[in-house]
């Protein structure tokens, strides 16, 4: 073999990889994909695996706390467990699940063929995976982080936490932040710039609106935690004094920066799910969302107001009565737009023709559980009573109520709703019902006792508790409940396996849907729409199926649609799609290498990581976006 032919054959091999990837078959077609639908599935499956990891961590926590003076795990392991559980569930489960939905749905709902920056989209996924892997790699390097998901300084500073765990946590979160921000930029540009003709902003589905609001929250909130994490790492690795009281620094700076991010973050977690609910309820009631403008504006209001409440996480830090009162009032007020949404959802159901299929059950479960969570949030906003509730199990109950009872139930509503669209098969309804009831019972058994525990003075983040506090029975109940939840997840997994193989075929529109994604085949072809639709109304697809008859009731249109379809006519062969690329993956690979170099102060590794990243960037910039 002459050396001259070696570089040529390597290039040739890479070109063949790209060609194979474009056929949508084989492993390369997943590794080099830039198709938003595939990226959505990658996000969803990866997030689900992390859900199992976070769930096992939760079960271990509950086993340890089932009885007083438990010794299932040591205090050190316990502290690592709850740190990883929280960090995993927030950053590696709920956020990526939302990204899965953004990816799968937004281009379809706005009538586009893909997102604005398909390779950046792939990069977002791979970077998410790298961040999650780096975070978990900490276990191999001396132990997982143990400072809580909120990482308060000075506990997370080097003198009190000399191992590498916190560094893995900080670097992992930075990488995850890059992933989220890249995704957010992509979706804002996509939603603003790539809507089908006739789709004004106020004709967009609510899920797309909530995606837009969430994306703005991400790009404006994540830089604050990025700065906080940089400051923490500069303290830990290079001896800076950001949070060092000895040199005059204040630990409260960490808390301010963290919560300026952290509070918008919880709305980042819930707004997409509120969007999902706003899609499921109208479809299964067969009437439009009640008060679309109010629902959209309240989402925007929540996003804005979320930046003005952060110090309600700091009421007990001694900020003084003026600050506490001000943040108390702003926090109380944010309940208003949230309440509006709940009332609008109820009014959507009222007067409808309600089908009690799985997506609707989970959506109703969401409303029932989320309203408890929201109301307990109002009790938190009453500052003096929060002096008792803060850092107790009452808080744990509150946020699980909104993040599990809310976000997770809503995510399952979305999964049952849209699974048929992307796989072509319906999930089994009986197993779905079993999943729902088990999960509802398990959830309440687990978390309602925690409200009581908090009010009875049980603090959070404790690896054990003594007898005689009145806490024993409630803890045992909570542990039992957690295993019922686990069982319900197993039922769901069985459902997916069974349904992928022999589920009922769904067809394009199994639910008599209202939005554009139901107008194309299930699963959608790579190009989504053969013709880019011209949009005439909100819920455009519904209006193509039905016209308004007497009494305002819809009457199905016989054939061809309520109005003529215009639009770009394209033959399948002439629709150009973005070509697959492996440069996003290469770029992503460089990030953990770069980070590991800093963690271990190995600057050769830092340089190597930088080289990989730069190679990825230049390759990406110079490669043609479409081939032929």
């Amino acid at each position, binding site marked *: 073999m002459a050396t001259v032919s070696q570089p040529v054959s390597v290039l040739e091999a890479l070109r063949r990889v790209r060609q194979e990837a474009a056929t949508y078959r084989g492993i390369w077609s997943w590794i080099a994909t830039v198709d938003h639908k595939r990226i959505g599935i990658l996000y969803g499956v990866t997030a689900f695996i992390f859900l199992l990891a976070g769930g096992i961590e939760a079960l271990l926590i509950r086993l340890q706390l089932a009885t007083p003076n438990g010794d299932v795990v040591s205090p050190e392991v316990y502290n690592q467990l709850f740190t990883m559980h929280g960090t995993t569930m927030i950053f590696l489960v709920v956020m990526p699940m939302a990204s899965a939905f953004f990816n799968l749905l937004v281009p379809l709902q706005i009538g586009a*063929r893909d997102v604005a920056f398909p390779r950046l989209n792939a990069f977002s996924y791979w970077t998410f995976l790298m961040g999650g892997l780096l975070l978990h790699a900490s276990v191999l390097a001396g132990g997982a982080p143990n400072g809580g998901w909120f990482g308060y300084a000075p506990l997370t500073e080097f003198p009190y936490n000399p191992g590498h765990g916190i560094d893995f946590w900080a670097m992992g979160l930075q990488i995850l932040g890059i992933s989220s921000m890249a995704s957010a930029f992509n979706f804002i540009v996509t939603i603003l710039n790539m809507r089908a003709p006739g789709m004004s902003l106020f004709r967009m589905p609510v899920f797309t609106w909530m995606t837009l609001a969430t994306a703005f929250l991400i790009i404006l909130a994540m830089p604050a935690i990025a700065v906080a994490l940089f400051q923490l790492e500069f303290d830990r690795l290079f001896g800076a004094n950001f949070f060092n009281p000895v040199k005059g620094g204040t630990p409260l700076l960490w808390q301010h920066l963290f919560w300026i991010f952290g509070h918008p973050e919880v709305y980042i977690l819930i707004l997409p799910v509120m969007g999902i609910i706003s899609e499921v309820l109208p479809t299964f009631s067969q009437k439009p969302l009640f008060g679309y403008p109010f629902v959209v504006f309240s989402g925007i209001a929540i996003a804005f107001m979320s930046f003005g409440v952060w110090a309600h996480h700091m009421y007990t830090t001694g900020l003084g009565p003026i600050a506490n009162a001000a943040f108390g009032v702003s926090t109380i007020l944010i309940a208003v737009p949230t309440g509006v949404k709940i009332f609008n959802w109820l009014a959507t159901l009222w007067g409808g023709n309600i089908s009690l299929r799985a997506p609707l059950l989970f959506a109703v479960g969401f409303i029932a559980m989320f309203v408890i969570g929201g109301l307990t949030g109002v009790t938190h906003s009453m500052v003096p009573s929060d002096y008792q509730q803060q850092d107790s199990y009452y808080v744990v109950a509150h946020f699980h109520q909104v993040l599990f009872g809310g976000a997770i139930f809503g995510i399952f509503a979305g999964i049952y709703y849209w699974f048929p669209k992307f796989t072509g098969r319906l999930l089994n309804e009986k197993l779905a019902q079993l999943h729902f009831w088990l999960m509802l019972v398990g959830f309440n058994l687990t978390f309602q006792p925690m409200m009581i525990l908090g009010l009875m003075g049980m603090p959070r983040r404790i690896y054990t508790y003594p007898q005689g506090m009145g806490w024993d029975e409630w803890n045992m109940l909570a542990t039992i409940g957690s295993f019922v939840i686990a069982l319900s997840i197993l039922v769901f997994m069985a459902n997916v396996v069974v349904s992928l193989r022999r589920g009922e075929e769904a067809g394009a529109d199994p639910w008599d849907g209202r939005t554009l994604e139901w107008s194309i085949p299930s699963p959608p072809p790579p190009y989504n729409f053969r013709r880019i639709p011209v949009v005439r109304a909100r819920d455009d697809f519904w209006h193509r199926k039905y016209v308004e008859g007497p009494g305002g009731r819809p009457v199905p249109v016989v054939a061809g649609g309520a109005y003529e379809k215009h639009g770009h006519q394209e033959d399948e062969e002439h629709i150009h799609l973005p070509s697959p690329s492996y440069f996003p993956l290469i770029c992503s690979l460089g990030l953990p290498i770069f980070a590991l170099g800093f963690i271990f102060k190995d600057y050769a590794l830092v340089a190597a990581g930088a080289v990989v990243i730069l190679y990825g960037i230049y390759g990406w910039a110079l490669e043609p976006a479409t081939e032929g």
Partner: protein
Amino acid sequence: MTHQPRLAETTLETATGLDNRKLMMWLFLASEAVFFGSLIATYLLYRGQSLQGPYPEDVFNIPFTSVSSFILLMSSATMALAVGAAQRGQLHQMRTWLLVTPLLGISFLAGQAFEFTEFYRQGLTLSSNLFGTTFYVLTGFHGAHVSVGVLILLSLWAAAMLGKIGRHNAINVEIAGLYWHFVDIVWIVIFTLVYLLEPL
């Protein structure tokens, strides 16, 4: 039909009329504003709180920093010239300004490096006090952003020398210009708040 345009393509029609990449750069700059805002807020929070020296008045050399600030400011002017030349298809001028701008940026960075080594020599380190911590991190991140900008501009210059940048894809120069101007504006804020307002 939607796909990512390569360097050699024109802008597609978008619902807002703004090119996708330009819109994205604006969004990115908004997030950068929050990023630098947090670092600047930290600096201001800790201003005057150092328990021991060296203090700013001990180390600052305002005339020197004024000169390097001026150089950076000039680079924004040359950047604007590069954008204008690109949009008018004046390739020779575009190439010139696309080289001069990063060279001015490098001069600014050299000035920063010199300043930092001077401060270090006078005992100001990352660990010495709050001033060292907040100053080096804030200006260091800014310098890192300038460096990335220099890399982007030199890459554009190289592409221009290879004939790949012209009127049809002037938007690439424009977008780089947005980033460069932003980095310059951040410096103006830093220079004002950190250096010039120090005596107050």
